[in-house]
């Protein structure tokens, strides 16, 4: 696929690059097409990889130093006069240090700013709680006007960064630190903001995941098929807001069992968003949320933290088996339910 303007996704090697590296490269390419794109960093240009854009367009790149509040406020001012700012910092700082500036300056004014929040969830493992963002989705999901995307890997990050240009408003894209294994081999799988991607078909239970946990959910589905003979549907819910209600309701209808998985506190993120849809539907559904169980996560290697929080393959397999074993009376007549 070669989008308009000659942007070619083959500019990166998804197997060798981290999502944030791919983001940097894709943004630099978008910069050639859109002269109004500017890049903003708060002394994390190297870490968030927005430096790739900055090196290519030094006159359109602004480092604000370690001052996130001002950076988000300035981004609002830039958007107010017609620029399209891409603001990059760690998810913890984008959502919490700069919280009110994102909410009041950017979202309230519905400005065309794109926030690329890196090191999401516990992906910056060894840095510990100060640099983990397990609350960010809960916080920013509550901001009106904001679209919230959590890409599953580097290729999906590229798709999300490109697609967010079609939205004339604020977008929050949350990516990891960069050790997420690639899932997609091609960018041409029909990525669409607000539409879940079915990674595996299934009829017994649905696992709804986002970000780095999609990889683990897909692997868990394979294990469960081979060892338990289970047909596990895996949905990659890359857009947390607006959430794909249709895909959730279809999962309720088809499988009657749903588990959500996210590298985030179980309060307020993907699981809560899915639960809202299920509760409003009035349909019966066995449901469980995997994620950080309302605790601060300790430091450690990211893969160890995923395991500790039971959001890796092992944790998902265990929870699926538990939920499949639960007594659940599924009424065949969907229409009877309220």
């Amino acid at each position, binding site marked *: 696929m070669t989008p308009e303007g000659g942007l070619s996704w083959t500019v990166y090697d998804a197997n060798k690059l981290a999502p944030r590296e791919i983001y940097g490269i894709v943004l630099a390419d978008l910069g050639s097409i859109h002269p*109004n794109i*500017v890049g903003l960093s708060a002394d994390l240009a190297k870490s968030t990889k927005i430096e790739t854009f900055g090196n290519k367009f030094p*006159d*359109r790149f*602004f480092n*604000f*130093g370690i*001052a996130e*509040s*001002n950076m*988000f*406020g*300035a*981004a*609002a*001012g*830039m*958007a*107010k*006069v*017609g*620029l399209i*700012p891409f603001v990059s910092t760690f998810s913890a700082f984008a959502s919490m240090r700069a919280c*009110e*500036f994102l909410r*009041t*300056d950017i979202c*309230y*004014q*519905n400005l065309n700013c794109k926030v690329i929040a890196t090191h999401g969830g516990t992906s910056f493992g060894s840095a510990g709680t100060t640099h983990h963002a397990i609350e960010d989705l809960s916080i920013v999901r509550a901001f009106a006007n904001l679209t919230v995307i959590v890409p599953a890997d580097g290729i999906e990050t590229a798709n999300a960064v490109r697609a967010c240009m079609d939205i004339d408003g604020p977008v929050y894209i949350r990516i990891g630190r960069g050790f997420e294994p690639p899932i997609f081999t091609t960018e041409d799988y029909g990525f669409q903001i607000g539409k879940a991607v079915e990674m595996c078909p299934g009829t017994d239970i649905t696992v709804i995941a986002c970000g780095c946990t999609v990889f683990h959910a897909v692997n868990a589905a394979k294990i469960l098929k081979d060892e338990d003979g289970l047909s596990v549907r895996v949905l990659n819910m890359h857009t947390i807001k607006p959430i794909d209600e249709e895909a959730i309701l279809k999962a309720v209808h088809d499988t009657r069992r749903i588990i959500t998985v996210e590298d985030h506190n179980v309060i307020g993120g993907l699981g809560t968003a899915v639960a809202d849809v299920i509760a409003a539907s009035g349909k019966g559904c066995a449901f469980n949320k995997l994620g950080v169980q309302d605790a601060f996560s300790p430091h450690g290697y990211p893969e160890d933290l995923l395991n500790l929080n039971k959001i890796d393959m092992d944790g998902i397999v265990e929870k699926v088996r538990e939920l499949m074993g639960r007594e659940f009376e599924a009424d065949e007549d969907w229409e009877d339910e309220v």
Partner: protein
Amino acid sequence: MPITDQERIELQRRANAVRKDIVDVTGWSGGAHIGGSLSMVDMLTTLYWKYMKVDPANPLWEDRDRFVLSKGHGGVGHAVVLAHKGYFPKEELKDFNHTGSNLGMHLDSHKAKGVDASTGSMGHGLCQAVGMAIGARVLDKPFHVYCVVGDGESNEGSIWEAAMSAAHYKLSNLTAFLDRNRMMIDGPTETVMRLEPLADKWTAFGWKVRVVDGHDYGQLVDAIDFALTYKEGPVMVLCNTIKGKGVDFMENDPAWHYGGLNTDMVAKAQKSLEKFDV
């Protein structure tokens, strides 16, 4: 350009008419941030009637000069100025703060014509003004960005983050005004949280500072003329002002940071302002 006698009289007339309307709106609305609105009227009048290139009939004109009221609670003062300038009918002021109206305590840039940035929470406006000034440079636009900062607001760390960045990027297309009325909600600024030496602080942060009497048009004009010709970086016009300026029973009383006025008080305030009619 230095101010002429005729201009001075016209600005005085305009400012006093604006102050009288601020008093009326405070009465109609049930309460408003009147003290800090009255203190900044002379700066806004000088900017809107002598300097700013704007077109009230085309409020979103791309090349217009921008104005950001960082001390967003001065919304009532700004709204009256905008009505006088012709952005919307003065009649709309009668609905200030009312449900469904375009004008509320903190002005919404999507609703109030002529408002370039929604402000209200302290320490946000100067950051947005910095972004606008950088934006003008990237887009090669000729417009100038003006921003009025409150002194109480200057307790906020983000004001100093913005100050640092404006100096770092040498934003000579940004001119800020500090409404130094020395009062905040809980009392005098120097009692609540000491700000002095404030001019030295802005100088140390890399701004060119001009200290003026914020009610003296000659001094304001000289400072703005300087700011528009100074090309090395941003200029701060530190305006010493009187909170509640013009209304004798409000002047320098922090109780009038926010307040309501009954009919008698409105009449009393108007009588006080009549002394400044020219």
